[in-house]
């Protein structure tokens, strides 16, 4: 479903081009749960951002279904991010001035048209599923890290995304909360959602179907 071939990416750091991805190839099948692991600075987050279209690769091929993501127009990429892709980050992944419910509905608030009632109902269901329906009117700042992460997952659920990209979703959480998040991700995968997760915790990587190890911008296995 998602295919990356010979992806390279350099970053300009203090005027010097530093290669971060040095020719990585990866395929994510429909409904697959893939973990990307590696040490800090190995390039795993950059790879996730390239796969989720947030960062453009310098070279290589990147395809999602029939779409060549490297040549896709901005508007088509936006459509993809609106419907098919969801991204959750390690930190600060919610708008702090919107309530939990509004954050969950953020993908549907792009125009002057009020959010449809069906979307609102679905958001309530998804918040209920992640155990946050009773905190729908709260601001993210009053939630714990785990709860904030669950709001981000609820947002992906409301969108009915096909692929969920998670960048160290348990990185800032305690063990118990991290396990809850992993349970949620596993459940979503079982329901057919493809999940690509960056983690540096082997025990969580073991819960996925496949682990990809990145070292110094290269895939080692």
């Amino acid at each position, binding site marked *: 479903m998602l295919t990356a071939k010979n992806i390279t990416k350099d970053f300009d750091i203090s005027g010097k081009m530093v290669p971060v991805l040095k020719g990585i190839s990866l395929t994510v099948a429909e409904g697959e749960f893939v973990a990307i692991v590696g040490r800090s600075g190995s390039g795993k987050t950059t790879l996730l951002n390239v796969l989720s279209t947030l960062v*453009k690769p310098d070279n290589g091929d990147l395809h999602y279904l029939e779409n060549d993501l490297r040549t896709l127009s901005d*508007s088509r990429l936006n459509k*993809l991010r609106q419907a098919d892709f969801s991204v959750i980050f390690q930190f600060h*992944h919610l708008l702090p001035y919107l309530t939990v419910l509004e954050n969950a509905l953020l993908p549907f*608030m792009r125009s002057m*048209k009020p959010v449809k009632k069906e979307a609102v109902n679905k958001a309530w269901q998804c918040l209920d599923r992640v155990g946050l329906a009773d905190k729908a009117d709260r601001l993210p700042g009053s939630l714990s890290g785990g709860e904030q992460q669950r709001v981000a997952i609820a947002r992906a659920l409301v969108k009915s995304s096909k692929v969920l990209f998670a960048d160290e979703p348990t990185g800032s959480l305690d063990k118990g909360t991290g396990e809850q998040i992993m349970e949620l991700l596993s459940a979503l995968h079982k329901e057919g959602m493809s999940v690509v997760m960056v983690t540096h915790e082997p025990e969580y990587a073991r819960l996925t179907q496949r682990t990809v190890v990145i070292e110094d911008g290269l895939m080692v296995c």
Partner: protein
Amino acid sequence: MNILTIPIRNIRRKPSKTMLLLLVFSLGVMSIVALYQVSQVVGYSLEKKLTTFGANIVISPATEKLSVSYGGFQMGEMFFEIQDLPEETTVQAIRAIKLQDRISAVAPKLVTMAKINDIAVALVGVRWQDELGIKSYWATDGSFPEQADQILLGKKAAAQLGLSAGAKVSILGKEFLVSGTLLETGTDDDTVILMGLTELQTLINKPGATSFIEVAALCSGCPIEDIVSQIREQLPNTEVKALQNIVNQRMASVHFVQKLALSISLVILVTASAMVGLSMLSAVNERKKDIGILRSLGYGKGNIFFIICLEAGLIGVLSGTLGYLTGYLSSFKVLEYLSLADGATPQFSFAHLLLAGVVFGLITVLAALYPSWKGAGIEPSAALVAL
């Protein structure tokens, strides 16, 4: 919930920052509105004061004139059918035009010739209250007539007749008391004898007649041509002339005040807009993280541009409304402090209130165009650095 929710919530998130920005721009709007109101009132007062220095419209009976010569003898210009204007109906007609609020004074006059001690002199009948209303520069060595049998002499006429204040003189068979002599004006008034209009009408047996009528009109807000054409419509058989040089001089004074206010307003507006622009620019830099989140959710550049513009526009609309109200109220204080109102008051208008909201909303949007464009141009990858 819609896209408006995002800027509204963000504005509420930082109340102190929002209040400060609102305060700065409202103060700018307040200054502009107060300046506008003060300039309007001062312009009106100034023009009203200027109308006391003479009329700017003259209405006279329609006449036909002909240059006559016969057998090589030049008889000069002959006037046919010189008719007088009926005072009451003409004054009423002038006061009844659509722009009647722009009529500051109406001064009817009757002119005739008489011989006093074998010296030919012009007699001018006036309504003293109206006449002094448009000739505030008149000064006399005695007093202005207060009784029907009192007259005022022009400086040259007094010298020619050898009369001064307190003297008695017989005019067309009736005795009058000279109440004073006009100090030299440099105008035709120096050569005439001025008396009450009713007395002159009675003396020459022309009750209710006038030779011409001078009108002092306020021209700011509408051109003199409009007033003139409306008087012409009311008085079709008369000649209505605007004294353009007087009008232009007065309007130059009024426009100077208004242009000065406009220039200061523009400086304030540009400064306030620059502050809004800078504030939005810094807000864009602060909110790269938010932009990154929104971009990751499929918000396009247009959406980001719209959100930032909306935020600026909301501040502009609020500032415009608040600034108009405070500016309107403060203009009273300014006029009171400067003692410039002269009877006129600032005018409140709901249409202007709405206009202020819309216009200043648009101005802040314009000021935020560059920050919005810059914000919209942030690639998700750049915004992710902030995450």
